[in-house]
Structure formats: C-alpha cells, structure tokens
C-alpha cells in the first residue's frame, strides 16, 4: 500500500512538471530542455533554506518560486532571440550550466554528496510526514496548478501563445507583443517547475544533483510530446503511463538491469510513433468562442 502511495506522489510531482512545461513547449511552441534545471533550483532552494535556517515552507516556497522565476526570466531574455533548433541547444546549454553549478559549487550545495535530512512540510503544527497526508497535499497542489494553467491558456494571453506557436510573424502583425508573451510564459513555467522541486525535496528528504540532469529534462519533454503538447488531460495520462512504465516492466518479470534500458527504448519508440501521428493529422488551430 505504501508503495502505491509513493507512486501516486511521483505521478503528482511529474504532472506538475509536465503541465508547466506544456505552457512553454505546447502552447508557445518552444521546446525547452531546461526544465529539470528549474525543478532542481526549486528543490535546492527549499532544501538549503530549511536545513540551514529552519524556515518553514511558507517562506521557502515563495522564495524558491521567486529565485527560479528570476533565473527563468534572464534565461528567456537570452533564449528568445533564437528559434527552433537553436532554442533547444541553448536551453540544453542552460540546463548543463545549472547542473554543473549544483554539482560543482561544493561550498553551498555540497556537490555530489547531496543534502540529507530535509525536514517534512509543517503547516500550522501539522506535519505532512506520512505518505497518505503528503499525497493529499500534493494532489491539492496539483489541482491548484491544473486550474491555474487551464485558466491561463483559456485567457486572451493563452490565445496569443497559441497564435504565436502557429505563426509568429502573423501574430506580430496583429499588434501582439510576441517577445513579451514568450518571456512571460517561460517565467511562469519555470516558477511552477520549482513548486514541483519543493514538493520533491520535502518528500524524498534527500536530494543530490543526479535527480536534475539533462536526461530528466528529456524525460519531461517526452512526457509532454507523447501527451500531445497542449492537452492537459492527455499529458496527465502520459505522465501516469511513463512514470508507471518501469513498475509494469518489473511486474512482468524483467530483470532490473535490462528493465532500465527497456524503459528508455519504449519511450524512444513512443516518441517516434507520436511524431508519425503528428505528420498524419493537419495541425489545425481550434479556438472556442467565448
């Protein structure tokens, strides 16, 4: 039972990550590979503040969101100058830079040793240290974020994002500020990713840089691509599928050394199949009249 709860919490964390990436990758059409970096910034900020200064999550969560928001803002200022392939390479570069700072700045982040003994979340004297209570908390946060993103993409701003992902120059000609829209969407997405990092740090209670590598970024991006880029429900289903996939492979009795590779191969195949599907259908912009 404990194990199922653990998987459910992981699904919740990855749902936050992939849905927040969907704002950037799906709605505004820029494939970002820096998402695990912001996830890591959130986790490290809350871990350092709560271990070293004993701050409660009421302070660490806004601070983590603020910090990764600032970094995402700077990053998008640079990255917005490029499109397509170069955008992916530059976000990948930023991911590598963030990872090497986490891994190599040993005076602050303790490097590869990681940060142990992160306290669990306490709100008004109630500690979320059992798995069930933590699941309730994370489902609550997922619901809030889902609601926020859903409202965001249905707002006029969300329509600007959809339009610019279809045709950037046309959107510009309508008098919309494309650069600002890109920067704002990237910043929001970075801030939401840090929320997932805060949850992860307090749940696992030990973090090290290997949780925030480039592979993690690729994993999150493939969830979004397999989930159909801009459909929050199918992204959630894709998250469930990809997070539970290793467990399913273990369930059918595959040895663990092959299972890790097998899982990656399956999601590689899924990526290719999904791209073939994209080619089949005409990508039409649907907008509901409000």
């Amino acid at each position, binding site marked *: 039972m404990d194990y199922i709860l653990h998987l459910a919490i992981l699904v919740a964390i990855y749902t936050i990550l992939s849905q927040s990436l969907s704002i950037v990758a799906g709605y505004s059409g820029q*494939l970002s590979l820096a998402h695990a970096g912001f996830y890591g910034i959130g986790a490290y900020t809350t871990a350092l503040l709560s271990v070293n200064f004993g701050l409660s999550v009421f302070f660490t969560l806004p601070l983590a969101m603020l910090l990764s928001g600032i970094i995402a803002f700077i990053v998008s200022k*640079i990255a917005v*100058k*490029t*499109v*397509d*392939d*170069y955008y*992916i*390479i*530059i976000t*990948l*570069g*930023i991911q*590598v*830079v963030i990872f*090497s*700072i986490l*891994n*190599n700045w040993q005076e602050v982040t303790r490097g590869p040793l990681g940060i142990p003994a992160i306290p669990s979340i306490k709100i008004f004297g109630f500690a979320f240290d059992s798995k069930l209570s933590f699941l309730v908390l994370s489902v609550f946060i997922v619901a809030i974020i889902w609601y926020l993103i859903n409202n965001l993409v249905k707002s006029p701003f969300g329509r600007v994002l959809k339009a610019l992902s279809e045709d950037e120059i046309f959107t510009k000609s309508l008098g919309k500020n494309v650069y600002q829209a890109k920067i704002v969407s990237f910043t929001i997405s970075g801030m939401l990713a840090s929320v997932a990092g805060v949850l992860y740090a307090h749940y696992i209670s030990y973090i090290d840089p290997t949780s925030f590598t480039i592979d993690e970024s*690729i994993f999150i991006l493939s969830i979004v*691509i397999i989930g159909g880029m801009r459909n929050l429900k199918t992204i959630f289903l894709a998250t469930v599928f990809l997070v539970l996939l290793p467990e399913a492979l273990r369930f059918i009795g595959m040895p663990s050394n*092959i299972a890790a*590779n*097998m899982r*990656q*191969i399956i*999601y*590689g*195949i*899924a*990526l*290719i199949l999904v*791209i*073939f599907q*994209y*080619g*089949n259908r005409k990508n039409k912009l649907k907008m509901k009249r409000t």
Partner: protein
Amino acid sequence: MDLIFNIFYYSLLLFLLNKSFQIIYTVNKFFHIAHAITITFGAYFTYLFSILLGFSTLLSIPLAIVASTIINIIIYQIIYNPLENKKTQNWQLLVASLGVYIILQNLVSMCFGDDTKSFRTWKVKGGHQLLETYITDVQIIVIIVSVGLLIFSYLFIEKTNIGKQLKAVSSNPSLSDIFGISTNKAILYSFVLGSALASVAGILIAADMDMTPTMGFNWLLFAVVAMIIGGMGKMRYLFLGTLLLATAQYLSAYYLDSKWMNATAYIILIVFLFFKPYGFSGKKLKKAEL
C-alpha cells in the same frame, strides 16, 4: 606547450565531427541528434569486430565504418524519409531523431554493458618527445588521419559532382529539383558521407581515449556548439569556432578545475548567441533573429 598541443589536438577532433555534422545539417536542415550514436557505433563496431570476433584491427576498422553507415541509411529510409514526405516541421524531425538516439544508445548499453571499454590491443608506449611535449603514436595517427579526411572532404564537396549536388540542394532544394538533381539522392549522399566521417571520428576518439555508450552525445554537443560559434559559413570560420571553444575549455580546466569544462562551453555559446547570433561568419541562417 603541452596545453597548446592539447588544444590543437582536441580542436582537430572537434572539427572533424563538426564537419561531418554540418554535411548532414546543411542538406537536411534539421538537427540530427542520432548523429551522436554514429560516433558511438564507430567505436563499438570496431570493438565488436576486433576484440569479440577476433579480426585484425586493420580489417575491422573499415568494416565498422561500413556497418555504421549502413545503419544510418536504414534509419533514414524507414524513419526520416517518410516523415519528410509528410512535410513535418524541423522540430518534429529533431524529436524523432532524439527517439532514434535513445533507442540505439540503450541497445548499445544492453549489448555491451555500460562500463568503459577499449579496443587497444597494442601496448601503450611512452611517446616521442617533441618540443617539450609528449606525443604518442596513436595521437600522431589521429592527427594525420583527421587532417587527411578534412582535406578530402573539402575537395570532395568543392570538386566532385556529388559535392556540387549537395551544395545545390542545401542552398535551394526546389530550384535544384528543376535542374534535375534528385533531392532524395543528395540527402542519401550526405548521410553516407556524414556518417562515415563521424564513425571515423568515433574510432579515433576511442583509439586514444576510452569508450562508453554515451560518449557520442557530449562530443556531438560540443561540435554543435562550435558550429554555432563559427557560424554556417566557410571552413575557416568553423575552424576558428572550434579553436575558440577548445581554448576556452582547456584554459578553464587549467585555471579553475576540469569539472567546469562543460559549463564553460555552454557559457561561451550563450554569450555568443546573445551578442553575435550568427557566429563569426555572420551569415544569416534564419535560425536566430534580432
């Protein structure tokens, strides 16, 4: 003196990779991430033929080059060609090639294991002393082979008929179609040439250093960074780009620590994209806009 030799040596290898990647990139216009696995394949096929099957090294190297080129052609025929006929966008092809990379890289780790391997059967000797620095026999071979291949590829593209076709297709596919140059054939030629060069580079890297299943990815990314720094112009700009990257990486390793080498490469990339988005050559590519 040692440092200068290392920078030169490293940038030569990068330049070879860079060239091989660029041949595919200019013709196909998408980032062929699975190019990384061609590098790995070159090394691992040599290992397979020379160590596991017991052929002589001189025989197994050409076999490895042919095998990894054939695999690339197969990938092109069953995945990229149908996708290009469906008029998919560049980023979708990129994601598909990422899927191919993930699948093949995990197949390599499943078949050969994740540990470092080497196909060196010869003894490692002390090396010759030359101008206060030591050069091993392997390094001399690497330098000769890579300089030779670079000159060969330059002459091939500038002088032969196939090379001219490649240039024509890369600058204007529809016009060259009118003049009777088959785009499909040109793309196939570019895949053959690029993959063969990349697998040679992989073999050279593995002959001097060791090999792991993921080695291709890092090397490819540095080559791509060098390509972006150099811009898409003439070969001398590309060489300037690789030289700058190699110098910065080695100086950072020398003065700071070798663990900051990756971060330095990407910081240079970010600075370049911010101030000089078209690289040294200044040739516009419609990838970055100001």
